[in-house]
């Protein structure tokens, strides 16, 4: 691990200013991803600003009837919150499908959103990786790429965003509140937080240097039954090959509306808007679910090792939609 200096932030504004003041400074919260990467010298911050004790650890009701989740709320506390469990069960399911009990006790809400990919070539400093070292190439394109993206990838990068939580939040239309070094705040729809790789996969979000996530706001729970389903190589403590978060609202035997997000398929949680359009007004049936799945994956491109993800994602979506309408 490279040497760094450490400070504990006194306030959100001070933390943002402290990171902005040094080009190689970083926020640290749970540290479960950052320290792992620092040990491997993939991340090499010169200064760490510890934001884990900022008073951003509450979950509050919003006037609109939703919840405002502080950026420092731990993944385990968010998953266990009775309001989240009853009103946003898909979010609890997604959180509990990720990582281990120990890591969920440490990992923060904002850190979960900003975690880096687990692409093995990103982790291997002997291999080219445009995300780790701009312009060095992508070893995954011709390499071991069974865990990689089938949607929204580029010739520069086919890595996926590893979060489960973010997939559920994308389906719930969460909004990300940030604070900048000057104290300004802004709100970013979760679908706009992560960038697709295009030619600059090392730039992963729209956040500026020193801009800190303060909270995630969940709109009131949309009508319909929520289901999060994750498919992975082992039954626990593994990243998603494919995951689907779905909320389906029925009216009689028809689907009034559906919200669908996918994980494990792209560099960001992937909102399947085409599939949602296909389902709106359709009779709830396996045929409609199949049409939705085909629409969601219409633009999918495999890279050899991950070709299986395309049919797997379709089947997972059909299965998840069926589960969501069962008692919707």
């Amino acid at each position, binding site marked *: *691990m*490279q*040497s*760094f*200096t*450490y400070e*504990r932030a006194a306030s959100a504004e001070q933390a943002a200013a402290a990171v902005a003041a040094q080009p190689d400074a970083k926020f*640290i919260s*749970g*540290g*479960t991803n950052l*320290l*792992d990467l620092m*040990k491997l*010298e993939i991340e090499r911050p010169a200064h*760490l600003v*510890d934001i*884990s004790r900022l008073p951003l650890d509450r979950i509050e009701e919003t006037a609109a009837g939703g919840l405002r989740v502080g950026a420092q709320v731990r993944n*385990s506390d968010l*998953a*266990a919150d*009775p309001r989240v*469990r*009853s009103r946003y*069960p898909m979010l*609890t*399911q997604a959180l*509990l*499908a990720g*990582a*281990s*009990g*120990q*890591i969920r*006790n*440490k990992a923060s809400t904002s850190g979960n959103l900003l975690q880096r990919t687990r692409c093995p070539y990103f982790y291997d400093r002997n291999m080219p990786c445009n995300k780790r070292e701009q312009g060095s190439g992508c070893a995954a394109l011709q390499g071991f790429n069974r865990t990689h993206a089938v949607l929204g990838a580029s010739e520069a990068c086919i890595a996926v965003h590893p979060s489960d939580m973010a997939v559920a939040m994308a389906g719930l239309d969460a909004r990300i509140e940030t604070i900048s070094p000057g104290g300004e705040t802004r709100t970013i729809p979760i679908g706009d937080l992560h960038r697709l790789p295009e030619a600059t996969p090392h730039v992963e979000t729209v956040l500026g240097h020193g801009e800190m996530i303060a909270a995630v706001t969940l709109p009131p729970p949309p009508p319909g039954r929520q289901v999060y389903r994750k498919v992975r190589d082992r*039954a*626990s*403590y593994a990243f998603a090959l494919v995951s689907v978060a779905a909320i389906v609202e029925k009216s009689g035997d028809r689907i009034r509306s559906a919200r669908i997000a996918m994980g494990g398929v792209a560099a960001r949680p992937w909102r399947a808007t085409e599939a949602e359009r296909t389902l709106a007004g359709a009779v709830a049936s396996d045929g409609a679910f199949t049409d939705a799945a085909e629409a969601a994956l219409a633009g999918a491109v495999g890279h050899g090792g991950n070709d299986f993800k395309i049919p797997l994602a379709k089947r997972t979506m059909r299965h998840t939609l069926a589960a969501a309408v069962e008692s919707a």
Partner: protein
Amino acid sequence: MAETDYRNGPTRRAVLEGGVATGVLLATSIPAYAEPAGAVSAAASAAPAPTMPMTLRINAKDLSVELDPRTTLLDALRNHLGLTGSKKGCDHGQCGACTVLVDGRRINSCLTLAAMHEGDEITTVEGLAVGDRLHPVQAAFVARDGFQCGYCTPGQICSAVGMLGEARAGWPSHASADVAAASVALTDAEIRERMSGNICRCAAYPNIVAAIRDAAEGA
């Protein structure tokens, strides 16, 4: 690996280097195996890094120590405070051997900086027993033979203590059919899912699950 005044007992390494007959074979392999991250750091930093004074509250004792900011909580415990019960397995949060309790919650001590835990109440496996009376989870591991080589055991035990608290608080898991249910029935499937952050390479899992089931039932 500076020896400090904070050691409160012999380390495994000191015992091995002292020439215990059974340690001869292990002494050549354990140090290299146990400190992979340290080797990288030493090569990467030519000048000695500045240290930070800090006070950590561990097993109800305040311990003051000067540490390089890079020192993980695990390395602080093992290398600077003489508390070698917490084990270094993978050093990347994947195996759970380093699990300790911070303010009653289980975490991977390898994936956090010691400096981040000033002011916290840290409990290691050394702090679970009261005098000679084992913690119920420790006693259950002994009664059920919940280990083979024992290397993962301190982490398994600390993790189980934290996990039982989570279950008592009604936290659901991936194995729970209804995440909104108010209480948890700790079935074997629940125990296995909740303990998936602790790997046992001897695969003593059936006895580990049995020990935790006993502890949960107050047996």
